[in-house]
C-alpha cells in the first residue's frame, strides 16, 4: 500500500499512536460522545490511488474505503487489533491451519441501486475479482495466493476459486494449500468487502474494470451516486463526496457515523491546507503531513498543539546496498557503511526528532510487542555511534579488515539513484557525504520518485549500488508483511522487486519460510524478531528512521486517528463539536 505522504512506498496498517511530547488527544478519540449531523471536510494534496475498493492499496484511500465498505474484519480508530466488521465473529482456524471459517452478519444490505442483503457469495466474488487483471489488485496473490485453486498466473476474467466455499448464505470457508500465519490478518484488507456479482460483472468485463465508478457500499457512507448507480460524488483530482448510505443499519455496526456528509477536497498545497485547517475552514489533513515549518509553529503554540496527533508508522526508511555488485557484496564494507552513515543528518532531512526516532533495526517500536521486543527492542543497535551521527573510526577499522589498507575505499565510483526533489534528494546528499568520509565517490542519478522505483531500484538488472530513498510499511499487524517481501531471497523478481538489497541469505530465507507457516503467534513473533536481528546485521539495508505521521484536526471536530493506518483519520468516528 502506498504511504500517506506518497514519499515512500510500502504498506501501512499496524501502528500505534505516539502521543509525542504531550501532543495529541485534543479531542474525542473514542468517538463515544460525538454529535450527530454536520459535514466533515478533509483536505488532500493528491487523489486516491483507485476508487474501486478491490484495487485500492494506499493509506489515504483506505480512510475512505473502510467507511464505505465493510471487509470481514476492521479496526476501531484507537486499536491495532482487528475485530469483526462484516464477519459475525472472528474467523476460526482448523487445527492443521488449512481451513478458515467465517460467518457473516445477517441483515447487512448493499446501498442503492442494489438494495439487497449481502451474502457469502458476494465476499467470494469480491476476492475472486482481485485475481482478474482488469481489477489488478496489488496484494491478492501475496496474501490469498495460498487458497486452493487460486490462479498462479494473471487472469483475463474473474476466476472461480475452489478454495473459497459458501456452504450457506452466511458462511464462507477458505481452504488453504498450506498453513499461513498471515491469512487471517489479511481478511481485514478491503478485497474482502462484498461485491454483488450480478450487478458488478458487467463492469468487470474488458481490460480495465469500471466497477469503481458504479460501486455500491455496505458501510455507513457511500460515494454520492445517481439513481442508476453511477458515482457522481467523485471527480478525479478534485473532490470526493460521501453521503449516508440509506441501507446501513447501525445495529449491525460499531461505527457511530456521526457526520451526515464527508467532503474530501483534493489538490491542496500542504502549507495552504495546513493553514486552512488551523483556521477552521477545513477539518483534517488526508494524504499530506503538515510541512516541517508548520509543525514547528504548531507545536510551539499552546492553543494549536493539542489539535495535532502523531501516529507511528509500522516500518522504517532505509538505505539499500546492492549485495550483488562490488563493493557492497562484501559484508565488512557494508558494515563499515552502516557505521559511518550519519543517521541523525538523514533524519534532519525529514524534519528532525519530531519526525520520529532513529531506527536501529527494521521492526518499528510502535508495532506493539509484535516482533520489536523479540528483536531486542531499543537495546538492539549493532552499529552504534554518538547521537547517531556515525562512527568514522569504527568504519575505517572495518574497511581495513575488508582489505583497504588506508581504511578508505579506493575502488571505482559507486552509483546511487535518488529522488530529484526534496526530501529524497537531501537524503541522497547525506548518504554521499557520509560515504565520502571513508573514501567513496558516489555518483548520484536523480530521477522522479516513481521512476526511481519502477525503472531502477525495483528492476534488479538496472539496480545501482545504492538505493537511498527506499522504505517499507507493514500491510497489517504481522512482521511477515514488513520483512518477507523486502528481504526474502525467494522474492527477488525481475520487475517490481522490493528486495532492494537483493539479499539472498539461506539462513534468513530458511527461518522466514518456517515463520510463515507458524500458527502460534508467540512463536511466530519470536522468529520474526530473530529474523529482524539477522537482517540488520547483514547491513544489506541500513534503517535510519522509525517515522511518525502527524494528523492535524481543526478545533471544530473531535479527533479519531486510525492507529492501524498510520494516523489517517477515521471519519466515521469524528464528529463536529
Amino acid at each position, binding site marked *: *500500500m502506498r504511504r500517506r505522504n506518497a514519499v515512500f512506498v510500502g504498506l501501512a496498517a499496524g501502528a500505534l499512536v505516539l502521543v509525542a511530547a504531550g501532543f495529541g488527544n485534543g479531542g474525542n478519540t473514542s468517538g463515544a460522545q460525538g454529535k450527530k449531523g454536520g459535514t466533515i471536510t478533509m483536505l488532500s494534496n493528491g487523489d486516491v490511488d483507485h476508487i474501486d475498493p478491490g484495487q485500492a492499496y494506499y493509506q489515504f484511500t483506505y480512510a475512505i474505503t473502510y467507511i464505505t465498505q465493510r471487509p470481514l474484519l476492521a479496526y476501531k480508530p484507537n486499536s491495532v487489533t482487528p475485530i469483526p466488521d462484516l464477519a459475525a465473529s472472528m474467523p476460526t482456524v482448523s487445527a492443521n491451519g488449512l481451513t478458515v471459517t467465517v460467518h457473516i452478519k445477517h441483515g447487512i444490505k448493499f446501498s442503492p441501486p442494489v438494495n439487497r442483503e449481502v451474502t457469502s457469495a458476494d465476499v467470494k466474488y469480491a476476492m475472486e475479482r482481485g485475481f482478474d487483471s482488469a481489477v489488478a489488485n496489488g496484494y491478492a496473490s501475496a496474501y490469498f495466493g495460498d487458497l486452493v485453486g487460486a490462479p498462479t498466473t494473471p487472469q483475463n476474467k474473474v476466476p472461480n476459486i475452489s478454495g473459497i466455499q459458501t456452504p450457506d448464505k452466511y458462511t464462507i470457508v477458505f481452504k488453504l494449500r498450506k498453513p499461513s500465519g498471515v491469512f487471517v490478518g489479511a481478511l481485514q484488507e478491503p478485497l474482502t468487502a462484498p461485491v454483488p456479482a450480478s450487478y458488478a460483472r458487467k463492469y468487470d468485463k474488458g481490460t480495465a474494470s469500471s466497477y469503481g465508478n458504479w460501486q455500491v457500499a455496505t458501510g455507513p457512507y457511500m460515494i454520492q451516486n445517481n439513481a442508476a448507480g453511477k458515482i457522481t460524488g467523485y471527480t478525479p*483530482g478534485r473532490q470526493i463526496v460521501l453521503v449516508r448510505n440509506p441501507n446501513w443499519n447501525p445495529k449491525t455496526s460499531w461505527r457511530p457515523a456521526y457526520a451526515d456528509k464527508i467532503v474530501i477536497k483534493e*489538490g491542496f498545497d500542504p502549507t495552504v491546507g495546513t493553514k*486552512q485547517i488551523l483556521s477552521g475552514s477545513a477539518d483534517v489533513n488526508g494524504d499530506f503531513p503538515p510541512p516541517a515549518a508548520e509543525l514547528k509553529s504548531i507545536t510551539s503554540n499552546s492553543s494549536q498543539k493539542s489539535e495535532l496527533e502523531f501516529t507511528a508508522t509500522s516500518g522504517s526508511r532505509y538505505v539499500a546496498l546492492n549485495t550483488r555488485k562490488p563493493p557492497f557484496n562484501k559484508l565488512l564494507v557494508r558494515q563499515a557503511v552502516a557505521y559511518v552513515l550519519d543517521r541523525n543528518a538523514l533524519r534532519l532531512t525529514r524534519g528532525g526528532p519530531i519526525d520520529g526516532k532513529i531506527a536501529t533495526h527494521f521492526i518499528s517500536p510502535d508495532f506493539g510487542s509484535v516482533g520489536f521486543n523479540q528483536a531486542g527492542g531499543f537495546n538492539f543497535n549493532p552499529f552504534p555511534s554518538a547521537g547517531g551521527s556515525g562512527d568514522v573510526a569504527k568504519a575505517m577499522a572495518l574497511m581495513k579488515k575488508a582489505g583497504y589498507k588506508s581504511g578508505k575505499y579506493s575502488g571505482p565510483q559507486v552509483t546511487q539513484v535518488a529522488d530529484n526533489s526534496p526530501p529524497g534528494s537531501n537524503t541522497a546528499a547525506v548518504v554521499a557525504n557520509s560515504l565520502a568520509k571513508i573514501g567513496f565517490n558516489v555518483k548520484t542519478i536523480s530521477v522522479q520518485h516513481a521512476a526511481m522505483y519502477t*525503472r531502477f531500484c525495483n528492476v534488479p538488472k538496472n539496480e545501482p549500488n545504492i538505493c537511498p530513498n527506499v522504505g517499507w510499511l507493514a500491510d497489517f499487524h504481522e512482521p511477515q508483511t514488513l520483512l518477507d517481501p523486502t528481504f526474502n531471497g525467494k522474492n527477488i523478481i525481475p520487475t517490481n522487486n*522490493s528486495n532492494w538489497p537483493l539479499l539472498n541469505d539461506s539462513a534468513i530465507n530458511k527461518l522466514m519460510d518456517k515463520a510463515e507457516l507458524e500458527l502460534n503467534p508467540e512463536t511466530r513473533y519470536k522468529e520474526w524478531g530473530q529474523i529482524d536481528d539477522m537482517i540488520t546485521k547483514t547491513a544489506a539495508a541500513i534503517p535510519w528512521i522509525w517515522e511518525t505521521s502527524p494528523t492535524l484536526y481543526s478545533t471544530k471536530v473531535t479527533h479519531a486517528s486510525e492507529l492501524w493506518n498510520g494516523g489517517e483519520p477515521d471519519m466515521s468516528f469524528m464528529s463536529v463539536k
Partner: protein
Amino acid sequence: MGAYIVRRTLWAILLLLVVSFLTFVIFNVFPSADPAALRAGRNATPALIEQIRRNLGLDKPFYTQYWIYLKGLLEHFNLGYSYYNTESVKSEIFSRLPATISVTVGGFVAWMLIGIPVGIISAIKPRSLLDRIMMGGSLVAISAPVYFLGLVSLFLFAQGTGVLQWAGAAGSYVPITQNPGTWFNSLILAWLTLAAAFAAFYARMTRGNLIEVMHEDYIRTARAKGLRESVVITKHGLRAALTPIVTMAGMDIGLLLGGAILTEIVFNIPGIGRYAYDAIVNADLPAIQGTVLFGAFFIVFANLVVDILYAFLDPRVTYG
C-alpha cells in the same frame, strides 16, 4: 487573407503532429516511471504487471502505440484513457477547460490592464518619482516566481489563510455559471499572481517603446499641426508603440499557460494545468499527451489570431 489562414492552419496541424510525436518519444526514451508497475501496486507479480502492460497496449513498440493513438485522435477525436483512473482524457480536459480559460483570460486581462497603463504613465513622466516607483515595483514583480507570489498572496489576502481575508480561499473555485460573485472572488488572487510578472515586463516594454516613438519625426509633425498632447500620444504614439507588444502578447500567451499550471496548483483550481501536473506525477501518458496537445493548440491558435490582428494594427502588413 483566406489563403493565408488556410496555409497557417495546415502548418498548425503539422506542428501539432510533431509535438505529439515528440511527446511520445520523450516519454519512451527518457527514464520516466513505468505506468504498468504503478498501476499494479507494490506486491504485484511480474506476470500481473506484464498482463497490465498488454491490457494498456504498452507492450507494443512505441511507434505502433503512436499510430494507434493517432488513428483514434484523427478518426474519433479520441485522446485516450488515463492509465491511472481509466477516465476519458478528452472528457477530463473539456470539463476542466472553463477553469483554465477563467484563469488565463482573467490573467491576460489583468496583465494588459495593469501593464500597459503603467507603461504609458511611466513613459509620459520619465524619471519622475512615480516612474521610478512603478519601474522598481515591476522589477520586483518580474523577479518573484509565481509559486512564491501565489503563496504570499494567499497568506496575506485569502480567506482561511490570510491576514486580511479579502479574497477567496485556495480551492474555493466554482464555475461562473454557478455563482459569478464567488467565481470572481475565488480567482482574483490567481489572476493578479499570474499577471504580475507579465504586467511588469509589459509595463517596461510599453514605457521603452513609447519613449522611443515619442521622439520620432512624425510625432513632432503631429505636435506641429497643433494636435492635443493626449491625441498625439494615443492616436500616433501608442498605436506604433503597441504593435510589437501585440505580437509579443500572442507568443507570451503560451508562457501564460505555463504560469497557469503553477497558479492552478498553488490556488487549487481544477483546470488543465493541475491535470497536467497530476499526469506527470503519475506517469499518465495519455493525460500528458492530451494536455501537451491542448497547450500546443492554444499557442498555435493564439499566434494565428495575433498575426491576423497585426494587419489591422499596422497597415503596412500584407498577406501574400
